[in-house]
């Protein structure tokens, strides 16, 4: 490519000055970037308004694209459904025969459970679903793992609320706009969820790794063995998540820190349930009225 002689600005004062100011502004841009970076490092929600304003425009577009994708995905599914209908029917009949005795046992257990809980006079809080919506897009080019939910403050979504899918926990809301909200996924390196093992209630935490999997770390005991296939559900510690939501399954056995897979594979084709914070923070104590 031929050399460009832009630095030879000629005798025009106007061109000389505009070139000089251009470079001053370029350096100023870098400095402003550094300042913004420091500001967003020390106060992450500072620019949430601007981010969510942009998300409010892109979320409906992504939602429309996702709807088109779902519509196209229906075609091969329908064809498959017709071809494999007979095999599927036979398989479901076999499965029904296996699960029928299990169901009757579960009914007995559920009845016992209810009776014993009444005896103990335990009060159960149930999770209250705020809105059911879909995840529409994600931070696919960044190392952070955020997703965008197609519902916002207008639907009652607030920061801190847990988000779960049909299979298990997906993450929690970090920022909300009017019609969109940003979800911190479980696999984000900054995400931490307290869990317990279903088998014996062993407490642990699930921390994101950034590559789609999560790390399982034991909390209060050392030399804890995790075996492959161990199931972990939320413990309810901290009051954010309701206890008993499926979170992750251990992939490879080990001690103290092992790799696990989350149950929920966040997908724009599936629903996401936003529920209330399980135990909300108590309201601040009323300030005593000043004596007249």
């Amino acid at each position, binding site marked *: 490519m031929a050399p460009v002689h832009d630095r030879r600005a000629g005798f025009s004062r106007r061109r000389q000055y505009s070139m000089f100011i251009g470079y001053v502004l370029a350096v100023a841009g870098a400095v402003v*970037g550094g300042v913004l970076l420091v500001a967003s490092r020390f106060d992450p929600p500072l620019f949430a308004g601007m981010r969510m304003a942009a998300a409010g425009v892109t979320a409906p577009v992504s939602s429309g694209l996702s709807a088109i994708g779902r519509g196209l995905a229906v075609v091969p599914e329908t064809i498959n459904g017709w071809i494999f209908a007979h095999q599927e029917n036979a398989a479901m009949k076999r499965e029904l025969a296996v699960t029928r005795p299990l169901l009757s046992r579960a009914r007995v257990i559920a009845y016992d459970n209810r009776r014993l809980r009444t005896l103990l006079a335990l009060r159960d809080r149930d999770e209250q679903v705020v809105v059911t919506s879909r995840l529409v*897009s994600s931070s696919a080019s*960044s*190392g952070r793992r955020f997703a965008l939910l197609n519902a916002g403050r207008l639907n009652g979504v607030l920061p801190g609320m847990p988000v779960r899918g049909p299979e298990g926990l997906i993450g929690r809301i970090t920022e909300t706009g009017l019609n969109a909200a940003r979800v911190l996924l479980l696999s984000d390196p900054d995400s931490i969820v307290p869990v317990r093992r279903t088998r014996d209630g062993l407490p642990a935490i699930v921390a994101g790794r*950034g590559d789609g999997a999560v790390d399982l770390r034991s909390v209060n005991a050392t030399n804890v063995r995790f075996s492959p296939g161990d199931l972990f559900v939320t413990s309810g510690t901290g009051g954010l998540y309701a206890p008993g939501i499926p979170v992750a399954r251990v992939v490879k056995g080990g001690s103290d820190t092992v790799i696990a897979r989350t149950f929920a594979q966040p997908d*724009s084709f599936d629903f996401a349930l936003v529920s209330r914070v399980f135990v909300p923070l108590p309201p601040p104590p009323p300030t005593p009225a000043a004596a007249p």
Partner: protein
Amino acid sequence: MSTIEYNPFAPPLAPGRARALPWMTVMAGSLTTAVPVIATFPILPPLGLLMLVTWRLLARFALRPWAAAPLGAFDDLLSGQPLGSAVLLWSLVFLGVDLIERRLVYRDFWQDWLIASAAIILCLAGGRILAVPMGAQVDGAMAAQGVATILLFPVAARLVAWIDRKRGMNSGLPTGDTA
């Protein structure tokens, strides 16, 4: 398709629209994060950055020296990185390319590709250090992302060259006087 379709008498685009076109292509690159995919690791190449670097290297007067900062701010709003990371890194890339241009008077496409690769690696590594904690296991995925972005540079170069020819401004020369 004939490769010679240059018509010197074709009416060029209106100057305002021709000036806005490079900005719009870079912003369209940033907007690709709106694709309805929930990624579990960084898979999407930073296409906004790729378009910016390509415009800077192939048509150096298409974007002003200060354009990197506002375009970076737009990218930060959509990418999930903390606001300011692309503003800083993209501005540094522009200044760095300026410094290289002073030394390297004659460049060919391979050198452009090399400079673009350095810029992409700088931005991805910088973004990883600024946004993601050190202990995260994202390095392998981001290396693959960087390789994919570098391999996309020739495609971006063809696209930018095509747009630049269509918009009818000879961006190899300073704006204002087409000598």
